[in-house]
């Protein structure tokens, strides 16, 4: 059936449409370099969206929970075996993406007789000298490195709605997270709804969903630099929306 090149290209194209359709309802994940390190933000109704991967590495994902889980386990295993056999400083986001996840995801995407990974993910790392390093990986295996604020959006329209605030946030990496939180939450919200519904949407999100807010910061004591903000910490940051 796929032996003719044209059919294969067509099948891959169909698969792209299928995956875009599957991902469009996903809740965005935002990664924001800030004074403390890197701030990650999302909201979930059930399955967690932001995860600790290794001492200085976190992951955020949009996609099918079972696929997220499979890939999360792959990099967890890679990171911990590597960190044990060599050193924690040999575990880097680039190695995990370039030699671990990307080839695996691309192979699954192009083997059209099998199911692809329904996933789009983001890896955040406190790199050398605590410089923020961010990677995105698409369902087709394409990955990209970034060093500024980044939004993992479910589709292009969502990304466009948040683009202006994301551009502003990218220029504020020297500010503390608490100062950037309001803008970050708005950027995240715009990726879920139109601007005229933003206020109501954010209030509803706070009521109905679990806010996932994580800070990767070298100021956190001990080897693990991953700190998931507690309910109280989030309540302090979101007082203005929760007041009424």
């Amino acid at each position, binding site marked *: 059936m796929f032996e003719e090149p044209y059919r294969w290209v067509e099948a891959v194209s169909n698969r792209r449409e299928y995956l875009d359709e599957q991902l469009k309802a996903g809740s965005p994940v935002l990664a924001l370099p800030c004074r403390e390190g890197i701030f990650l933000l999302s909201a979930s109704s059930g399955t*967690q969206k932001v*995860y*600790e*991967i*290794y*001492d200085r590495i976190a992951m955020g994902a949009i996609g099918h929970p079972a696929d997220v889980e499979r890939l999360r*386990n792959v990099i*967890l*295993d890679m990171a*911990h*075996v590597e*960190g*044990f*056999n060599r050193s924690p400083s040999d575990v880097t986001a680039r190695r995990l993406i370039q030699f671990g996840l990307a080839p695996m995801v691309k192979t699954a995407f192009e083997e059209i007789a099998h199911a692809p990974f329904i996933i789009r993910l983001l890896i955040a790392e406190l790199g050398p000298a605590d410089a923020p390093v961010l990677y995105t990986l698409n369902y087709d295996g394409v990955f990209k490195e970034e060093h500024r604020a980044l939004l993992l959006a479910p589709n292009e329209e969502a990304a466009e709605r948040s683009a202006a605030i994301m551009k502003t946030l990218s220029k504020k990496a020297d500010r503390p997270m608490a100062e950037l939180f309001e803008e970050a939450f708005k950027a995240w919200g715009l990726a879920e709804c139109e601007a005229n519904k933003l206020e109501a949407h954010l209030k509803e999100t706070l009521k109905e969903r679990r806010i996932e807010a994580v800070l990767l910061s070298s100021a956190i*004591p*001990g*080897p*693990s630099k991953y700190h998931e903000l507690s309910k109280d910490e989030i309540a302090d940051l979101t007082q203005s929306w929760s007041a009424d």
Partner: protein
Amino acid sequence: MSGGDFLNLLKKDGYGFGTPAASPYPMDPNGKTGLTSATTILAFKYKDGIMIAGDRRATAGTTVMHDRADKVIDIDRYAVMAIAGVPATAFEMARVLSHTFKYYRRSQLQDLSLEGKVRALSRLLKENAPMALQGVGAVAPIFAVYDPLIKEGRIYFYDILGAEFEVVEFATTGSGSPGIRGALHHHNKWSDTPANEAGEEEAIVLAMRLLETAAEFDVATSGVKKADNIFPTIKTIDKEGVHTVPLDRLNALYREKVSPNDV
């Protein structure tokens, strides 16, 4: 999927922990390995949590190999392992244990239970039993951990085969331990301030005095060497987690309260 078991994951990758080796040392028919566990480590409860301390000497027979060894090792934010025994095996155990806890937490999205942590070390010791019995890798550690459920520190010691024992007040192991075991019992029974009522400063001073006592009677335990700035490793565990007592604080307390007449 590994189900959060880091040791199994390592084994799948070809790692062999505690694999028996062809040893030049035959097993002693009386069950004695002939190994020295040349060190002194101790842990006791004080008012705010647990004090855990160890001297810095590493020996091979009668030779001092190193006088700056750290035998009190952070395993995670709330757990510390102090090692007596063969350093190669002990440090490897600490590394496996540390990765075991963090791998479990990250893969299973919850902390390993306190019982699980205690058993994880027991399992490593059991897997190491062939090496220990061959006389080349015995380790007798102390494991101290803060229990968030009862909001209290807990102390366990192990034999070289992996049996675990929880203590009520204190644990000591290593070649210098018999003397200070008696001293600590005496202190708790008849002094005005038993260890579990002592504040942090008093507890640090007590730990240093005990290690100095051990060094007095055990050549394999090093005392403080002020000239070389060598002090014991002392850590505390409380509800905030593990803290290492800084060198300058140890230095000041040593001069003031452990050996004030020592010039």
